Structures are given as structure tokens and as C-alpha cells.
């Protein structure tokens, strides 16, 4: 069956887009996690029409399809399932199709790298705010499929807040268009919202229409250092309670700071317990300055040892480069890391930080804490060595406890990475049985053959 499927795929989309050597399959067996499973075939389509053809052939053959972009996901949502199947990689659909300066929208194929899209719209003074740390190595299609967040989402909202329309290939190969350029639209269900964050389980997003805003002209970025992690996390709420909405409000604990310093040699103080990166932005320079000054004052009143404002663009870039390299640089300390992205109501940040430390102490494995504290989204990363089985057992227990801690504080499993494979076992505990049932029904209605990214999100 497989060789016939390969022949058919080659006939439809050409030989260059159908891969199946052991080497091809090996490099499409992973994403940004430690999980790994080999597909049977990899396809690299170049048009929506080709994606549609592929899905039709797959549906006929009952072959599972795993859509993916650059494979930077952190929930194993784009790795193949044990039954194999087709990996459908959208990176070659990488054209920006339309920049509408009057309606301030951009229409782009799913495989456009998010940073490239941002650069293109910023050239004409527009702005696409969502900024996942993987911005240079993830695609806009992947961002939509996972409803990606990022530091700036505190002020500007997440990917889904910018989706105006989508082209989606459905499970039977038909091509659905959702939404459009109007900013207000209540004609029927919100299908944009349905497909955004559906992790490729309901349809394959091949084209996106995004809302843009004016580019903020001024930025001020501060680095505040705290001798107490607790004080740092309290400061987050103090700033927001003062009525200031910074573009970003990022927390890093000591291990996080040490890892970054080791990787990037920025001269960060590695003796302190925590630091905050705070950025204000806007079109009026005086307001931006006033806001950062107010943040600096609040930090000092909350016990910050040192607060420094970046004096120029180079200093600001260095801070953000450091922040973006945060997660990967952890691997300097251990061969494996498991990064979660629990999100709690922001009032609970000091409490969750305490609980994470207790979990780490109890299991004697380091948990590095950093994340977008301003919106309650934290990335506790457990450092371990998967080759040591007893460590892996501990990690699984720790993950359970981390989720439990988040849920008990009114939080959630995932703020921006998605469920994928890794968080499936905890879904029902987080959502309740009825919610899972409703969602399964939606899945079944759109994908009755269960060929679109099966084995993801829902527990078996």
C-alpha cells in the first residue's frame, strides 16, 4: 500500500516533494522536544491545491497525516504517531501574498517564517505583535495551529487575536475559507477561533490573513535584579496593579540567569535570585519613558537590588537575545529538559513560584523558572538525563505535580505550547469530562476518519 501511495503522491505533487529514504524519515521524526517517532513518508507541498490532493490520497489510504512547519514545537504536537503515516511539511509554502496597507492586513502562506513576516510588515510601518521565542525558526502556520504567544502578548494578545481569516484544507481534501478582512464579523460560528490552536487535528491551515497594527515607535527596556525570587514575582503584580501595561514583563530565576550567562557572556549578575525584564512601548516617547520610570520605581520599592534601563538599541537587543535563548541554553546543564508552560491567574504567581520550588526540592531535580510572568504564563523547565531511568520516573511524577499545582490555583496546563502528545494524560483533569466530550465531538464532525494528526490532544 505504501509504495502505491508514494507513486500516487509523486504523480500528484512531483518527485521532489515526496521523500522516503531512511535519512529523510529520520530527520522528520522529531520536533523541539525529546520525543521521536518515524513517519513512512514526508511530503513538501508548494500549494494549497497540492495539500488538498495529498489529503484526498491519504484519506483514501486511511493514512494518518501529521502537519508541521519548522518543527520547533514544545509539546510533541508535530511528531508522527507510532502508526507512522505522512508528515506534511509546509515550509515550502513560504510566500507573502498580499500586504494591504489600507485595511492593514497581511495574507501569507503557512510556511512563511514569522520573523520574515514581521520584517516585511515593519518595512512599511506596520506591526505584527505576537513574538514566540522561536520567532526566527517557526512558521506563521505553526503559530496559528498552536495559537502561539510570546513576551509581547501581555499587552498585545496572542496569535489568535490577529487571525482574520484562514484557508484550511479539511480532512476530506476540500478547501475551506474562513473569515475575511472585516474586523467585526459575527456571521455564523467563529471558525477562525476553532482552527486556531487546533494543532492540526481539525484541518490543515495553508494560508492566513492577519490583522496588523501600527508599529510602536519607542521602546524602553529595563532589567531589574532581585535578591529574592519571591519579591520579584510580587513586583509583577505591583506593576500591573499600578495601571501600567508593559509590552513585556519577563521573569527569570537564578538558574535561568546562570544558564544564559554561560551561553552568552552578557555580564549578567549570577549571584541574584531573580530578575525581571520589563519593556514599555508606544507611539509617544514621553509616555513610554514615564511608564518605564514608574516600573523602575516600583521595582526599587519592592526590593530590587539594581535596576538598569537599556541605553541604546544594542543593549536592548542583547537583553532580548538573551531572553530568546533562555530555553535552549538550559541544555548546557543537562542532556534533557522538559519545559512546561503552565499559566495561572497572575495574582497566583508568587504562590506558584513557591510551589514549583518545593516540588524541585522534594524530587531533587532542578526546576528552572522563567517566563512571561506578566500574563501568568511560566516555563518551569525540569533538567534531567533521560538515559537514567530513575530520573525519568521522577520527571513524570514532577510534571503531574506541576500541573496539579497550576490547576489548584485556578490555572491551566498550557498557555502557548499546546497539548500535543505530552500533556494528553492531563487533559481531562484540566478540562473536565464534558468539555473533553464536546471537543471530541467537534473532532469527529470534522475528521470522521481520524486521519488529521491523530494521537494528539485527546487521551487514548
Amino acid at each position, binding site marked *: 500500500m505504501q509504495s502505491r501511495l508514494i507513486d500516487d503522491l509523486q504523480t500528484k505533487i512531483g518527485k521532489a516533494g515526496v521523500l522516503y529514504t531512511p535519512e529523510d524519515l529520520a530527520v522528520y521524526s522529531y520536533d523541539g522536544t525529546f520525543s521521536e517517532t518515524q513517519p513512512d513518508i514526508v511530503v513538501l507541498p508548494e500549494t494549497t491545491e497540492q495539500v488538498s490532493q495529498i489529503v484526498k490520497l491519504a484519506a483514501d489510504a486511511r493514512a494518518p497525516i501529521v502537519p508541521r512547519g519548522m518543527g520547533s514545537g514544545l509539546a510533541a504536537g508535530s511528531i508522527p504517531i507510532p502508526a507512522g503515516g505522512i508528515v506534511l511539511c509546509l515550509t515550502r509554502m513560504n510566500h507573502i501574498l498580499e500586504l494591504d496597507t489600507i485595511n492593514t492586513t497581511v495574507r501569507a502562506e503557512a510556511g512563511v517564517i514569522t520573523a520574515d513576516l514581521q520584517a516585511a510588515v515593519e518595512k512599511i510601518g506596520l506591526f505584527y505583535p505576537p513574538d514566540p521565542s522561536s520567532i*526566527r*525558526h*517557526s512558521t506563521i502556520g505553526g503559530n496559528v495551529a498552536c495559537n502561539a504567544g510570546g513576551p509581547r502578548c501581555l499587552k498585545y494578545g496572542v496569535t489568535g487575536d490577529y487571525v482574520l481569516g484562514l484557508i484550511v484544507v479539511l480532512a476530506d481534501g476540500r478547501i475551506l475559507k474562513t473569515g475575511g478582512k472585516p474586523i467585526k464579523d459575527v456571521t455564523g460560528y467563529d471558525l477562525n477561533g476553532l482552527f486556531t490552536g487546533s494543532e492540526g487535528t481539525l484541518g490543515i491551515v495553508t494560508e492566513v490573513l492577519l490583522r496588523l497594527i501600527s508599529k510602536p515607535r519607542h521602546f524602553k527596556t529595563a532589567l531589574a535584579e532581585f535578591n529574592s525570587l519571591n519579591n520579584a514575582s510580587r513586583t509583577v503584580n505591583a506593576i500591573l496593579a499600578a495601571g501600567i501595561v508593559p509590552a513585556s514583563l519577563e521573569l527569570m530565576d537564578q538558574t535561568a540567569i546562570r544558564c544564559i550567562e554561560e551561553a552568552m557572556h552578557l555580564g549578567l549578575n549570577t549571584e541574584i535570585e531573580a530578575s525581571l525584564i520589563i519593556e514599555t512601548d508606544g507611539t509617544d516617547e514621553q509616555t513610554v519613558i514615564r511608564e518605564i520610570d514608574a516600573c523602575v520605581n516600583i521595582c526599587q520599592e519592592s526590593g530590587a537590588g539594581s535596576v538598569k534601563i537599556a541605553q541604546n538599541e544594542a543593549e536592548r537587543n542583547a537583553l532580548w537575545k538573551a531572553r530568546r535563548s533562555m530555553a535552549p541554553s538550559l541544555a548546557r546543564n543537562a542532556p534533557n529538559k522538559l519545559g512546561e508552560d503552565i499559566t495561572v491567574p497572575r495574582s497566583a504567581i508568587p504562590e506558584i513560584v513557591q510551589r514549583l520550588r518545593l516540588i524541585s526540592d522534594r524530587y531533587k531535580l532542578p526546576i528552572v523558572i522563567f517566563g512571561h510572568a506578566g500574563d501568568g504564563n511560566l516555563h518551569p523547565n525540569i533538567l534531567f538525563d533521560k538515559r537514567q531511568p530513575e530520573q525519568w520516573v521522577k520527571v513524570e511524577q514532577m510534571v503531574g505535580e506541576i500541573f496539579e499545582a497550576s490547576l489548584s490555583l485556578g490555572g491551566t496546563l498550557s498557555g502557548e505550547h499546546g497539548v500535543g502528545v505530552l500533556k494528553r494524560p492531563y487533559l481531562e483533569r484540566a478540562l473536565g469530562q464534558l468539555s473533553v466530550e464536546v471537543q471530541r465531538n467537534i473532532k469527529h464532525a470534522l475528521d470522521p476518519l481520524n486521519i488529521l494528526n491523530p494521537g494528539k490532544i485527546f487521551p487514548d
Partner: protein
Amino acid sequence: MNVLPIIEKPGETDYINCIRCGLCLAVCPTYREHLNEIAGPRGRVALARKSLEGELTLSPNLVEQMNACFACLACNEICPVGIRPAELTLSMRYVQEQIKPIGWKQTLFGGLVSNPDRMEAATLPLRLYERSGIRKLIYQLRLTRLLPSQVRDMEAMLPHLPQRPLRQVLPEKIDAFGQSRYRVGFFLGCAQNLLFAEESKATVRVLARNGCTVITPREVQCCGMPARGYGRLDLVRAQAKDNIATFEKADVDVVITDCATCGSTLKDYKALLQEEAEWAPRADAFSARIRDVSEFLTEIPLEEPKGELKARVTYHDPCHLRRGQQIWQQPRALLSMIDGLDFVELPEADWCCGSAGSQLITHYETSTKVMDRKLDNLVSTGAQVIASGCPGCQMQLLTGVQRRHLDIRVVHPVTLLSEAYEAEDAK
């Protein structure tokens, strides 16, 4: 399990910490052209790991993925956990050569490249092609149009060739103009000797003018980078030892090169020979003495050029300078000293040009795509001159400029400095 025989191979620490974050994909020139995981650093690391751990065989396809890396070092630099994917692909090429050596590589890198006399003899037909006027005639009659595009591009790679290799005409010792302040060795690289002789003459003139007594040992061998690229690390080590011994005899304060690739390779001798007790200290001392010409000139009190050159100029960062040696400010500083030059920064100046040694020959399609990105950026600057301190980059840029029929001069930055001095003398 496909267990590899006992050979020199990468250790677990060279790949185990790859967390597959994908940061390297953003900066990899081959990935950005193919948009296929297998053409990027993360894929190459995965393949290397799987073949070393016995999960995959060292198949021709797997080996080809290692050869397809342009070794531009961008992935090494960006990797947050300190893995060096580019290095790993070079090591994997050596693994392959140890298991299944390819005969012509021994002949080419062991027999020919490592022996300057034979290199010069072998390239005589190229010089005759230029000297006889056949090349000029072919251009005048536009006969290159008849060539297949790859051959035409390879022809265009050649600069105007010197009548004789520089080694045969450059005195072994050139005295400093005026008082001698430094006794420097000049490492005359193969490309400079055979192709860019005029540029290296300019380098030596600039050095002498700035108080250097320049010693150019005749028995210098290839730095070893070509052999390294083709997986013959053993030959690189042999060449390294010869070169170290040669310059020990020359008794110089520093060893200067005007080739980015030679410079980064010579500085790497230290790491290359660290396991050999007899050679490690000698390699340490040798590598510590190596200077790129732009690096050296910005370390010494340099005579300010007073002549004027009128042109809009931009600069392309060779991978082996920018990332190989962290040298990028120095060449720009030299250009900024010259009156009349209107310097514009090249967008993505440190993105690989696609030369990568011989990738234009071995991986023509990818190489030209990478070059096209460079040329688009070059055209956007409106520059009339592009400077770059690497013969490999210069050849690639020459090819690109000719392909697009652009009237842009490709030149070594130090040659421009020399011309500014000459303009001053002519006044």
C-alpha cells in the same frame, strides 16, 4: 546496529546535548534555500548521531548530507548549548574517509595541493589560457555563451590570472620602507599565489610601508582547509606540522595572511594538534602568532592614507573571518580610513556567499541560490565596489557579478588601502 569500526570519530559530547530547538535553522544558508530539514544543521546533527550510534548506516545519502554543509559556521555560533554542527559534518567526512577512502582525494590533497611546485605546474594551462589571449578572445566573441551554465560560472570564477605564480616572483625577504619595526612572516596561500597574486603583492607593499620586514617562506604548503573539507583530517595535520616547522625557522614575530580561510585554519592548528604531546606546544605558539592582515594593521600605528579613491563601497564578511576569527570591525575600520570612499553596509553582510571552497563545483544549484541572495543584497546597496578579505568569497562574487552583468568591482580591502597610498604618492 551498524557498529562503526574503531576510528577517530566524534564523541558523544559533540551531539548529545542537541535539544533540537531549531534555532540553527534560522541562520543556515542551505536550509533557507531548500526549506527541508535534511538540508539544515539540526537534521545533520540527527543523522550524524544516528549513524554514530548505529541506528542508521553511513549510506551514500547520509554522507552526502554531511558534504552538503557549507561549513559557514553560522550554526556553531548560534547554538545555545554549544554544539558545533558545522564541525560535526566535517568530522563525519573524516569518518567516511577512514572507513572508505577515496583514491583521488589522496592524489589531489596528499600529492598535489600539499606541494606548491606541483600545484603551480598543474595550473599552468590556466595561466596560458589567460596569457595567450585566448580568454580575452573568447570574451570578445562572447563564446562563453556556448558553455553549459555551470562551466561558464566556473570560468567566471577566475580572476585575471597572474603571468607567474607569486611565489616565483616575490622575494623571500622584503625590507621595510624606512625603519623596520616588525619582522613578520607572510603566509602565501594557494589562491593568492596562483590567482590573486596582485592582491597579495598589495598586501606585502602595505606591510612594508608600515615598518614590516616581510619574510615569505617558499616551502609553505596549503593551510589544509581543502583537505579538511574533503574529509582528510590526517592530511591537514601533516600540512600543519610542515607549516609550523617552516615558520619556526623563519623566526618572525607574527605570521600574516590575507586569506580568511588560511587564517582561520592556521589559528585552528592549536586545536588540531592538541592530542600530540610533541606538537601541541608548538601548534599553540604558532596559532597565537597568526594574524589576518586587517587584524594586524589595526593593531599597529598605521600610516593614514592621504590619497583619495572615489567609489561607493560595501563589504562582505567572509565566514572564516567573521565567525572563524571574530574579525569584522577591522576591515571596516581600514575602509573608513580611505578618503572618498562612500561606505554602505551590506544587508546580511555576514550571510555566506555560497562559495564554501568548492561548493560551486560540487553543489552548483545550492551554491548559486545562496549567491543570488547575496547578489540581491549587493544590488540593493548601489555599491560600485565590494570588498572582501577572502579569495573564495571573491571568486564567488566575481561569478555572481558576471552572471548578472553587473559593473561592480570585487576586491580585497587591503588592496584598496594600497591604492589609496598609491594615489597619495602620485599626487
